[in-house]
Each structure stands twice: as structure tokens, then as C-alpha cells.
């Protein structure tokens, strides 16, 4: 079928890249935004705009809230507290059994608590960063049967294939390692940028595609419930036998001992092991029973494996039941590979490098799509084919359309009042609709305004969407100022980086989009002038 190995690799690279590039672009772009997910949350929820606090007292502050969240102690299953090292508001999760219509089900209640006042926040806030962009980047928020996760995982697999086939078809991998020639014609410079962003950031692309696929391995190789189900069950029973952690209620009521004392003991143990840290996660089960279990984990800050250092207590007596054993070699490798992707640490230089790596991935995919169009558009124009029109429209939709959708959700977040009129959908639903609606509009515009590509000309959609991005970015910054009073001068002088950083990033996006729009426009004008003079020469001849 193919004349050489290289031509087979070219085929794979081109066609899988084209079909899945659109998905990968989303995974990379929203993945890059997720580096700052908690910061985006703070921009979107003005009540969360304060410094990160230490874990408040459980006995005095958190316990009453949990008691209010659960109908009764008999039906409580899990109380969880998550206070990671970058969120200012603390998440309280209560899961309890409900026996509606006779069969046992569970209900989950989630509240956000302000640790300074000890009060839960009012209203339904939407954490755009950690509850929307984050799931979007690995599941496209297509939850039906885990379809989105399958699509993204398959795309991740093909990304690995594209990286390897890309290396095979690249003729001058080392000779052109540092090469970018913007003056050598559009097609050459696009390919240069594609190669540069692909090759130089190759370790990043490879490890993120690989670990991303690896994190969801249980989804597509569910051997624990299929081929190895018996071994899995046996192992589980063995573990339960060895562990001192209770797995069910004893039936004897007993009040909960002081969890504050347990937190102090956990901190003391971490410090004694040379890993001093704050409490990040608390997990309680069977509260009110003699078998109550309290697990306390540190907030990961310094290494990729902090979360494996849990200390377990008997909730009724406050005695230490056991400490998580040191991870074995397999757990250490797995912890490193998933940790490098999920980045629980607070290392800001590394987080920025990750964000830039993700954006380099976007540039790589986008230039690949542009190169595909540039290479074929004149040929397609001669043949009168519309295929390239579709590809260019989809490229506009994914590159500029995606940014427009992102700005759309930020703008609507700032426009919606805190309390919505009765009968309206919830905040999170409205903001989600805004996101998809903005993207849909951008797509419709892209299809309408890329028609000239089919005649071999530049599509005006690119310039118009660049202007739209500029206007929307500035609007988002202004709306943040108007609705919260937090303008850049204030956030910068307070050095409140989560909000100042996002505002500055929005203004940078506005400037880049304006510059790009101007450049594209000028180039399109030059191209049409040349085309006209060629036509005039031809007419004269």
C-alpha cells in the first residue's frame, strides 16, 4: 500500500493528526489552563479572593457544619474535607445513605466553607477552573458511558503515535533543532514552527500524553473486575486482614474523640519524619460508632508523594491505628508518573513551564492543521473541492473559537447576579450553556467566513475572530473591575496574584490577538494585491 516506511508514517501522522488534532488541541489548551485551575476559581468566585488559610478547628468549626449536612449519624457514610494548598475556600463533602423507594442509595452534599469565618458560602458557585476546565480537558464533559474519556484517551494514544511518526518523517531532526525561519514563506515557516514546538517540547508532549493515558488505565483495562477479578478480591481480603482499619460499624455507639488532637498528632509525626506539612485532607467514616475511622493526609507541597503519608486514627478513642506504609517500588513509580501530570505541588516556576509546554503543544497542533490547509488549498481550488473549506473552518473553530468560548464563560460568570431569579437554571448550568453557545456561534461564523479558502484565498474568519478575542478579553477584565471593584492597580498593589495574574493574562491575550489580526489582515491584502497584478498581467498578455 505504501512505497516506504516513511510514507506510511506520513499517512498516519497526517490523517490521525487531522482527525484527532481537534480533540488534542482542546486537551492541551484546557490542560494548560488547569495549571491555574484554583486561581481561575478565585477569579470566578469573588468570595474566594483571600489568602490560603490553615485548616480550621474540626471540633469547633467543621463538626457542626457536617452535622447540619447529614440527616443522621446512622446513615452517614463519609465526611470528607479537602483543603489543598492553593484553594482558599475549603470543600466539605458529606455522603449519606438514603433509602428512597426501599433500595439503598447514597446522596452527596457538597458545601464550601470560609475558614476565616467558619461559615459556609451562600448560593451555588461554579468553580470554572477545577470543576469545568479540568474535567473538560480529559473527558470533554461527555459523561455518557465515559465516552469523552474514551475519546480523549484514544486521542492521547494517537498523540504518542503522532510524536513517533513525526520523528520518523522529520528529515533533519537535529540539524534543524533550533530552526525557525519566519521570512521564508508561509508554508515553510508554518512547518518550521510545527517542528520546533514538536521537537523541542517533545519530552513534555510525550510525558503528558503518556501519563494522561496512564491515569485512566483502569477505564479501558478494567482487569480488576474482569480477568483478574478473583485475584483482586483475594488481595482485598488479605489487605483488610492485615490492616487495623475497621471496614464496618461495630453497632456500639461512641462519641467522636477530638479530631483537632488527631490533626496535631499527624503533624507531629510528619515533622518527626522530616516532612513537616499542613493537614490537607481529612476523611471520616462511621462517626458515632465505636469503629469510627479518621484518616488524615498532608497537603502535598514539596514532593510528588506527600499524599501517601496518611495517618489513621480510631475516631472513638483518638488512638493511632496505623500509618500508611512507605510506598513500594511500583507505587513510587506510579506516584511519580501520575504526580507529574496532576502536579499537586506548589512549585510556581515548574507550573509556569507546564503551562507554556501545554501552549507549545497547542501551537504544534494548530500549525499542523494550518500546514495541512496551506499545502492543499490551491490544488483543491483548481479541483473545485470544498473539503479544504471544512478543514479550515474547523481549524478556526478549534484555534480562535476555543478561546472565544473560554472568554464567553468568564464574561457570563461576571454578568450573572449572585442570586438568580426564581425558575432560572443554576449558575453552573448557565455558565456551561454560555461556553458551548459561544463556541457554537464561533463555529457558525467560521463556516460562513472561510468560504474564500475554497478559491485558494485567505479566510476572513481568522481576522474577525482575532478582533472578537481582543474585545472579549478586555470586556472580561473590565467586568471583573465593575462587578467586584478589583481592578489591576488594586490587585497588583495588594500582590493578589490569582486575580491580577488572570487579568494580566487576559490583557496579554487581547494584545496578541490584536497583533495577530493586524498581521493576517496585512498579509491577506498583500496577497490579493499580488493576485490582482498577476491577473492584470495575464489580461494584458
Amino acid at each position: 500500500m505504501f512505497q516506504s516506511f516513511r510514507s506510511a508514517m506520513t499517512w498516519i501522522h497526517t490523517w490521525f493528526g487531522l482527525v484527532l488534532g481537534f480533540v488534542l488541541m482542546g486537551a492541551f489548551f484546557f490542560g494548560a489552563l488547569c495549571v491555574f485551575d484554583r486561581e481561575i476559581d478565585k477569579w470566578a468566585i469573588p468570595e474566594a479572593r483571600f489568602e490560603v488559610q490553615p485548616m480550621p478547628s474540626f471540633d469547633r468549626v467543621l463538626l457542626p457544619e457536617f452535622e447540619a449536612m447529614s440527616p443522621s449519624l446512622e446513615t452517614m457514610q463519609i465526611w470528607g474535607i479537602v483543603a489543598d494548598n492553593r484553594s482558599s475556600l475549603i470543600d466539605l463533602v458529606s455522603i449519606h445513605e438514603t433509602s428512597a423507594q426501599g433500595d439503598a442509595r447514597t446522596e452527596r452534599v457538597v458545601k464550601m466553607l470560609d475558614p476565616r469565618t467558619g461559615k459556609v458560602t451562600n448560593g451555588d458557585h461554579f468553580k470554572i477552573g477545577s470543576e469545568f476546565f479540568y474535567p473538560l480537558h480529559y473527558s470533554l464533559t461527555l459523561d455518557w458511558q465515559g465516552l469523552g474519556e474514551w475519546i480523549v484517551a484514544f486521542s492521547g494514544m494517537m498523540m504518542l503515535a503522532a510524536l513517533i511518526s513525526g520523528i520518523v518523517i522529520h528529515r533533519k531532526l537535529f540539524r534543524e533543532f533550533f530552526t525557525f525561519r519566519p521570512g521564508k514563506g508561509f508554508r515553510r515557516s508554518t512547518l518550521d514552527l510545527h517542528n520546533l514546538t514538536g521537537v523541542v517540547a517533545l519530552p513534555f508532549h510525550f510525558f503528558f500524553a503518556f501519563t494522561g493515558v496512564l491515569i485512566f488505565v483502569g477505564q479501558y483495562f478494567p482487569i480488576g473486575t474482569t480477568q483478574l477479578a478473583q485475584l483482586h478480591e483475594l488481595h482485598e481480603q488479605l489487605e483488610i486482614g492485615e490492616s487495623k482499619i475497621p471496614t464496618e460499624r461495630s453497632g456500639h455507639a461512641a462519641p467522636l474523640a477530638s479530631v483537632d488532637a488527631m490533626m496535631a498528632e499527624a503533624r507531629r509525626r510528619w515533622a518527626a519524619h522530616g516532612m513537616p506539612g499542613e493537614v490537607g485532607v481529612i476523611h471520616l467514616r462511621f462517626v458515632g460508632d465505636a469503629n469510627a475511622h479518621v484518616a488524615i493526609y498532608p497537603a502535598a507541597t514539596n514532593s510528588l508523594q506527600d499524599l501517601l503519608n496518611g495517618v489513621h486514627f480510631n475516631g472513638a478513642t483518638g488512638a493511632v491505628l496505623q500509618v500508611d506504609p512507605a510506598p513500594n517500588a511500583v507505587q513510587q513509580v506510579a506516584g511519580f508518573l501520575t504526580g507529574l501530570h496532576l502536579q499537586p505541588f506548589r512549585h510556581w516556576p515548574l507550573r509556569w513551564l507546564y503551562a507554556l509546554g501545554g501552549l507549545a503543544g497547542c501551537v504544534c497542533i494548530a500549525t499542523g492543521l494550518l500546514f495541512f490547509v496551506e499545502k492543499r488549498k490551491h490544488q483543491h481550488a483548481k479541483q473545485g473541492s470544498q473539503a479544504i473549506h471544512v478543514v479550515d473552518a474547523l481549524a478556526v473553530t478549534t484555534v480562535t473559537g476555543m478561546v472565544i468560548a473560554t472568554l464567553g464563560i468568564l464574561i457570563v460568570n461576571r454578568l450573572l447576579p449572585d442570586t438568580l431569579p426564581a425558575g432560572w437554571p443554576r449558575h453552573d448550568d448557565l455558565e456551561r450553556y454560555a461556553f458551548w453557545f459561544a463556541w457554537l456561534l464561533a463555529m457558525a461564523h467560521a463556516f460562513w467566513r472561510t468560504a474564500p479558502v475554497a478559491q485558494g484565498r485567505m479566510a476572513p474568519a481568522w481576522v474577525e475572530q482575532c478582533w472578537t478575542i481582543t474585545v472579549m478579553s478586555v470586556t472580561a477584565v473590565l467586568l471583573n473591575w465593575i462587578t467586584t471593584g478589583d481592578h489591576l492597580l488594586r490587585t497588583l498593589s495588594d500582590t493578589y496574584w490569582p486575580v491580577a495574574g488572570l487579568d494580566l493574562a487576559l490583557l496579554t491575550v487581547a494584545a496578541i490577538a490584536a497583533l495577530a489580526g493586524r498581521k493576517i489582515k496585512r498579509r491577506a491584502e498583500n496577497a490579493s494585491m499580488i493576485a490582482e497584478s498577476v491577473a492584470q498581467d495575464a489580461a494584458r498578455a
Partner: protein
Amino acid sequence: VRDALLLIAAFVTSIAGMGWLALSMDVHWRQVCGNAFGSPAPTKRLRALGTLGLGTSLVLCLSVNHASIASLVWVMALTAAAFSIAFILTWRAHWLRLLFPPARPTAG
């Protein structure tokens, strides 16, 4: 502050290392100096300097963070350094003369 300075040093050495590696390539030497290598060609010296630069950067990263994080910082620093050198070569190639004094246009 000490950690921040060491990290900055790690970034600087990785950029210098990548710069030296780029200079050891004929095509980039031409971009920087406008002419081909003189003889003897400094290729080996430049490659050794480049390797030393990247190696120093790794040691500096390891002195700041736990090895798991330091390895990631190093790999990402190399990526950022390679991008910086590529863009310097595109727009301000003569800046790289600073890295290697013998790299200057020879008269005639």
C-alpha cells in the same frame, strides 16, 4: 531567596548550554558570525561547553528540590532554553556572540 537564585542560575546555565550547542552547528554559527567556522573548527569545544552547561543546570536543579521535582524542572528548563535560543537565532542572532568571544565575523 537562596532557592530562587539557584533556580535562576539553573535557567541561565541551561540557556547558555543550549546556546553553545547551537553555535557548534555550522548553520547557526553562520547566522551568528556571517561566515563559516575558521580552522580549526571549535565544534568540539562548543559541544563540551554545551554539555557542561546543561549538566550544571541539572546539578543546580537537584540542589533546590526533591529529585522527583528537580528532574521535571530540569527537563522543562531545557525545553524553555531551547525555545529561547531558537527565537534569539531568528531575531537577534548576534546576541549569541556574547557566549563565545571567538565567535565574531572575521574580516575579509
